[in-house]
């Protein structure tokens, strides 16, 4: 294509292009704000659960079964309580306070999400960077392992592994990390492979840098924006997988206040008490969207190439 034509094309689309860019920038800022708010709320709930939660999340009360959320509760006399707002989001089929369970569930979700993301990132970045940086047989072996990993349906594999390791918090964290490290490994390998052939690597080598120092000081900072995004995504994925495991009653022992346990219970009583399932589902959706928005926005601000 000649330069004249491409110029005219650029001009033809130019007006819309910059407007779109400006809108994209504004939306990214909005998503950042939304992400901060969602993650802030989640962290607050997780850290201060005992002080925020109005009730003990595991305390059942057979006189308060399936009580609707406060604004729908017009039968105070029947339940024998003074104010509906004592149980703002209603109660479940055992009379446990939905709001308190939601808040304590955030704590567990946060523990699982952050631990898994750290473990998976550590393993994935190490193996992916080694494979991408050295190539050859190291790359072959690691890539083959990743291939085998990707040939399992991930949900099925996690269910099998949890059935094997037992349903404790630690085993759930280990299982999700063991399954998801490939996500980091693949991305980091591809990125390092690309960076390896750049001039600045040769320059660092001539300056006398060792492999390890080049990898850590030169290559990894360039991979960082992508890693941050992936890290936030992974927290969301880990929280979802924990919910899924609870849903098939294989996570942290049943009855504990987890979103997955609430959802599984809510699915059973959905025709009598929809709110038992609706609130944890809503919390999970907002959490995932918040983490995604945060990851995307941070990448946008951290990556100078993308911002241009």
């Amino acid at each position, binding site marked *: 294509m000649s330069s004249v034509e491409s110029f005219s094309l650029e001009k033809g689309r130019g007006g819309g292009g910059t407007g779109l860019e400006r809108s994209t920038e504004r939306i990214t800022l909005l998503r950042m704000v939304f992400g901060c708010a969602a993650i802030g709320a989640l962290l607050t709930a997780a850290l201060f659960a005992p002080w925020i939660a109005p009730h003990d999340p595991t305390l059942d009360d057979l006189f308060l079964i399936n009580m609707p959320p406060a604004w729908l509760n017009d039968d105070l006399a029947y339940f024998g309580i003074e104010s509906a707002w004592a149980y703002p989001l209603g109660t479940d089929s055992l009379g446990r306070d939905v709001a308190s369970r939601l808040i304590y569930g955030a704590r567990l979700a946060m523990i699982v999400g952050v631990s898994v993301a750290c473990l998976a990132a550590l393993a994935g970045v190490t193996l992916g960077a080694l494979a991408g940086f050295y190539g050859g047989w190291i790359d072959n072996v690691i890539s*083959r392992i990743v291939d085998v990993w990707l040939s*399992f349906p991930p949900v099925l594999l996690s269910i099998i592994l949890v*059935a094997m390791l037992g349903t404790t918090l630690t085993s759930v964290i280990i299982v999700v990390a063991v399954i998801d490290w490939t996500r980091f490994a693949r991305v980091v390998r591809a990125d390092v492979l690309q960076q390896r052939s750049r001039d600045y690597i040769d320059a660092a080598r001539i300056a006398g840098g060792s492999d390890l120092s080049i990898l850590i000081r030169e290559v990894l900072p360039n991979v960082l924006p992508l890693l941050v995004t992936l890290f936030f995504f992974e927290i969301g994925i880990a929280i979802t997988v924990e919910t899924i495991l609870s849903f098939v009653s294989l996570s942290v022992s049943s009855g504990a206040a987890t979103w997955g346990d609430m959802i599984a219970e809510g*699915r059973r009583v959905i025709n009598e008490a*929809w709110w038992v*399932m609706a609130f944890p589902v809503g919390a999970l959706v907002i959490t*995932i969207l918040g983490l995604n928005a945060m990851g995307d926005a941070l990448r946008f601000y951290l990556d100078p190439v993308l911002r241009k």
Partner: protein
Amino acid sequence: MARLLVTIGSIFLTLLGVSVVIFVILRLVPGDPISMMLPPGATDEVRANLERLYGLDKSIPAQYVIWLRNVAWLDFGMSTQFRLPVMEIILDRLPATLELVLLASLIALALAFAFSVLAVWLQVDSATLAIDGLAGLAQAIPDFLWALIFILAVTLFAPMMPISGRFDPRTAQDFATNFYLLESLVTFRIDAFAELARYAVLPALALGLPLAAGITRVLKGALEEAMAQDYVMLAQTKGKSRLAIVLGEALRNAMIPTIALTSVQLTFLIGGTVLIERQFSWPGIGSTAISAVINRDLPLIQGIVLVFALIFILINLASNELYRAADPRLRTVR
């Protein structure tokens, strides 16, 4: 020819790796299938007999060799839970899963096609942003959550819509094959088809939404790129409308890279059936797999995992080949 041999070799190598990993993992699972089959108060002798029957009295490597030899003859052993050959159970339930996957892919394709053509045709910032936003939303929320959202919405607002099973259990299904949807369509039993589709549409939509978003992103980009080419200018000077150019000229060129780039995402959709089937009580191999794990039905789990692995590997290979075919520059590179 040599490349074909290498490809086939690598399929077998990966499958072998998968089978070793799953075999070892399953042998380490606490809880033993024999205890689940025994009636209370069974003698040690009965127990030993059953262990011998299912080959569980031998060492793990010996068990693996026996199992592998049988698999070579397509014999995956007996399910301890159903007391039927694993192969029979898989063949019986695979059609339900395949129909769900097919419907979900069609829904994903249709949605992606409609939205990307709309965005490129309108060429309005607000529409582009709205469609990007929708795609982002559809992709960020996993299929498991979409399914829950649909179940909630149906319960609250459309209680007549079925959210469990493949058909109304009160009606008899007199089909020759297990492909109910396809068979009713091919034999023009429209009423039966509509009834079956009502059961299938929600699980298929939950499965298909994330894929629809993935395809939309790629297809929209490819269409935009195609619309900036010289032949579009030529068509414009001939006086063709923008929609005609998008559908007639750009789409054809955008299709191949889109299929090549998104076909690999089909594996996510197929992996998703495990949970979606469980959530909607869909009688496919996914929900069977979960019940097999819960009931420690080792032969059945091994069989189903291998079937999934084979499907995943074939899709990955096909998508590599498509990618290679779509981009002539890659053809010479090995």
